């Protein structure tokens, strides 16, 4: 018996599977690999949050919560945004707890886009941005940022891509994969551009706590009325597996997102919401320690790469460095594949994050110092050979 012969969704079929997959399969089949290919913290979730979830399970927190998420968690999130950045969202109707930024992004795009609406996506960027725009019926418009300019969100480059169909600009700072953190001045300029063309700014701020030069600039501080703030716990609190995050947006849009969420996800996992709340309340010291640790690794690793002639601007945030490998004469894929098979170090070729990532590889330093040092030795051997 065969499955029905009618075609599948053309939109979905047109999207290629993630280029990361190939390296995953290869790396997974090998022994003794040092992986710099991991996009998640190497720390476990702070114990206070884990313990709170265990307690919650023992006491029956196994139900749905309200669609929007636990009010206490939304209040903690909105108060925290007000405290740290001076941006104020109402917990009641401008903040929604989601199953990670991943769901928040999907809701945003589905609530916002009509068929044919264009979303400008500066790249190299997180692998999900363009597919999610397409899944929501929109047209992703990739725009290459300049590696020579530290992948700055240059308003001139972005402005040049605006058409009458443009509805939004989707970006993340600090960035996966480049680690670049945008300056307050560039965020301001981008906000002015969005105002001029009446665009939404879809701002993925999942790495907001992981910044190393000064503090993070939230986009809502510059353009509250046209910003969707996607935030999460996965990276800053090392909670990737819990599937919890949040999205904050002006009320009319937030309500539409709520409508999709109530019919699709219903709510983020109850016990994960409790863990996230506890993390916000008690794990600040853990976060500070993790950030200090990433900072040391960042310095050591980017210096090591520089000494090998793999130049990279010292990244300002997240836990990625995105060095240029053009000096080796190899393409990103050749480099990544050769490094993995010859020296057993897994990195992600830059082109999976967009064509302008070609000539680079993404290395995650969410890995213990001794392993980073060993990885540097292996990379040195690889490019010397």
């Amino acid at each position, binding site marked *: 018996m065969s499955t029905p012969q009618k075609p599948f969704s053309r939109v979905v079929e047109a999207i290629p599977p*993630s280029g990361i997959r190939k*390296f*995953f399969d290869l790396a*997974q089949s090998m022994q003794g690999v040092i992986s710099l290919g*991991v996009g998640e913290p190497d720390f476990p979730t702070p114990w206070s949050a884990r313990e709170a979830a265990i307690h919650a399970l023992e006491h029956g927190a196994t139900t749905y919560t309200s669609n929007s998420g636990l009010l206490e968690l939304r209040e903690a999130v909105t108060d925290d945004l007000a405290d740290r950045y001076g941006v104020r969202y109402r917990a009641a109707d401008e903040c929604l707890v989601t199953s990670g930024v991943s769901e928040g992004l999907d809701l945003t795009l589905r609530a916002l886009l009509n068929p044919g609406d264009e979303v400008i996506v500066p790249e190299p960027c997180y692998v999900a941005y363009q597919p999610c725009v397409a899944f929501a019926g929109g047209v992703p418009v990739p725009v290459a940022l300049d590696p020579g300019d530290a992948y700055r969100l240059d308003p001139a480059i972005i402005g040049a891509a605006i058409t009458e169909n443009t509805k939004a600009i989707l970006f993340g700072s600090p960035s996966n994969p480049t680690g670049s953190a945008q300056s307050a001045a560039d965020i301001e300029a981008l906000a002015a551009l969005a105002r001029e063309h009446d665009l939404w700014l879809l701002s993925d701020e999942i790495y907001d706590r992981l910044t190393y030069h000064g503090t993070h600039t939230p986009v809502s501080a510059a353009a509250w009325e046209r910003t969707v703030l996607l935030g999460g716990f996965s990276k800053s609190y090392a909670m990737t597996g819990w599937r919890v995050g949040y999205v904050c947006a002006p009320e009319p849009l937030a309500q539409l997102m709520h409508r999709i969420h109530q019919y699709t996800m219903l709510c983020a996992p109850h016990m994960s919401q409790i863990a996230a709340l506890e993390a916000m309340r008690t794990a600040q010291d853990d976060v500070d320690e993790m950030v*200090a640790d990433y900072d040391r690794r960042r*310095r050591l690793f980017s210096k090591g790469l520089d000494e090998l002639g793999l130049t990279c601007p010292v990244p300002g945030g997240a836990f990625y460095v995105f060095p240029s490998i053009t000096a080796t004469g190899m393409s990103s894929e050749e480099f990544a594949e050769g490094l993995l098979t010859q020296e057993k170090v*897994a990195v992600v070729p830059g082109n999976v994050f967009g064509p302008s990532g070609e000539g680079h590889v993404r290395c995650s330093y969410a890995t213990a110092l001794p392993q980073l040092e060993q990885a540097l030795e292996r990379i040195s051997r690889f490019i010397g050979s």
Partner: protein
Amino acid sequence: MREILTVLESDAHASSERIATLTGIDEATVREQVAAWEASGVIRRYKAVVDWDRFGDERVTAFVDVTVAPERGRGFDDVAERIARFREIRAVHLVSGAQDLRVEVEGASMKEVADFVAQKLSGIDRVTATSTHFLLRRYKDDGQLLTDPEPDQRLSVTP
């Protein structure tokens, strides 16, 4: 500057060069600062954290709660200092609660520790009672978990 101490606290071997790399502070400054801290006593000394059990040395530790009749005008200080001077004593703390001093005693065997408590500790003037708790297993010491680290469960390549 605090960062320098954080690095040294977890790796007393770290060279000035390495500390400079990890903190972004220049190497000459690191060297001067560390020397200044060594001189002023902010850095007391450099030590290795040795797991003697793993080395094969069987050592026995006991926590002993000591009740003391305090001395007029001197409180607990004289007695505490007398106790602290014994080689067998690893730590002495004045604590609140039913007993007064909580001390840590170390010896080569249970008998050695028991003899020390019976013959030396409880015989000290103004020590009126002792209560001894032998240590059975350390799970965390000096802020350091001694249990096996949790395995890394991450997939090797993720977005």
